[in-house]
C-alpha cells in the first residue's frame, strides 16, 4: 500500500467510536461495558454494534460475567487489536505530517 497514508487507514479501526473503544481498552487493559457507554456517550445498542464489529475483526475479546448479582461485560484488546491501534496512530501522525509539509499554513 503506497501513496497518501490516508489510503492505508483501516476503516474498522479508523471509525471515531471504535478508535475510542480501542484507545480506552488499551490504556485500561480491560474495560467494562458501562464505562465505555458513559465515557463515549453512546446508547447500549450502539456500543454493542461497534463492539461486535471489533470482535468480528478479531481486535477485541468480550467476556461476560457477574459481579455479585450484577451482570458485567468486560472488553479487552487482542494482540491484533493492539497492533491495529498502534498502526492507526502511526498512520494518523503520518497523515498530519504529510499534509503539514505540503501545506504549512494548514
Amino acid at each position, binding site marked *: 500500500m503506497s501513496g497518501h497514508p490516508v489510503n492505508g487507514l483501516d476503516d474498522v479501526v479508523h471509525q471515531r467510536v471504535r478508535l475510542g473503544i480501542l*484507545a480506552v481498552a488499551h490504556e485500561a487493559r480491560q474495560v467494562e461495558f458501562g*464505562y465505555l457507554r458513559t465515557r463515549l456517550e453512546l446508547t447500549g445498542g450502539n456500543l454493542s454494534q461497534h463492539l461486535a464489529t471489533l470482535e468480528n475483526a478479531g481486535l477485541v475479546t468480550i467476556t461476560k460475567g457477574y459481579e455479585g448479582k450484577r451482570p458485567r461485560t468486560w472488553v479487552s484488546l487482542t494482540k491484533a487489536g493492539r497492533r491495529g491501534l498502534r498502526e492507526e496512530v502511526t498512520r*494518523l501522525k503520518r497523515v498530519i505530517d504529510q*499534509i503539514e509539509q505540503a501545506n504549512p499554513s494548514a
Partner: protein
Amino acid sequence: MTTESAGSARARLELARDLAREVRREQRAAWFPLLVFGVITLIAIPVTRAGHAAGLVCRGNLAPGEHGVRVCVAHNSAAFVYWPVALIAAYVLIAFFYLRLARARGVGTRVRPYVVVGLVLACVTIAASIWASHRVLSGGYDFAGWHLQGPDLYRLIAPACAIGLALLVLAAVDRSVVLGAVALVFLVIAIGRPDFGWSIRQTSRWAFAPHLVIEAAVLLLASAGFALVQLQHRRARRRPV
C-alpha cells in the same frame, strides 16, 4: 480536502489521547498506598518503643588493659519483627484495594508490577536486615563504584528506603510526575535523615521517634494532597457542563 483530513486526523488522535488520559486518572489512587505507608510508619513508633535491644554483636576484641575502639550494635526486637509483617501486609492491602477500585470504576489496573516490585523490595529489606543483624557495619564499603560508610548501609536497608523505592515504581506505573517527585523527596529524607532541628537526646528511649514522625508526616501529607486533588477532579467531572 487535505486540510479537512489533517484536522480530522488530529481530532482523532486527540480523542484517543484524551480518553487514555481519562482512564489513567480513573486508575490512579496514590493516596491509598501513601496513607497505608504513613500509618504503618506511625504505628512503628510505639512498637519500636516497646521493643528492647537484642542480638548484640561487636567488632574489635580488646584484650584486658588494651586501648582501642570496640563497636557494638543491637537491633530492636519488636521493630525487627514488625517491619517485615507490616510491609508485606501493606502490599497485600494495597493490591486488594487497587483491584476493588478498578472493578468498581469499570477499568483494569496496572498495579501488578508495583505490588511485585514492592514485595521483592520488602523481601530484600528483610534479608538484608537479617544479614546485618549478625555483623557490625562500620568502616567503608565499596559497591559497584560507590563508597559507602556503615551508617549509610543501615539507612539503605531500612524499611523507609523500600517504601520510597516502591513509591518510585508506583509513579512510573501511574506515569505521575508529582508522585515521582514525592517519592524522591521521601527517599532523600529516608536516606539523609534530616531532623529539621528536632532531636531527642541519644540516651532517651524515644531518640528514634523524630525520624519516624517526619517520614510518616511526609507520607500522610502527600496522601491528603493526592486525595484532595482526586476529589476535586471527580467533583468537576460530575458538574454539568
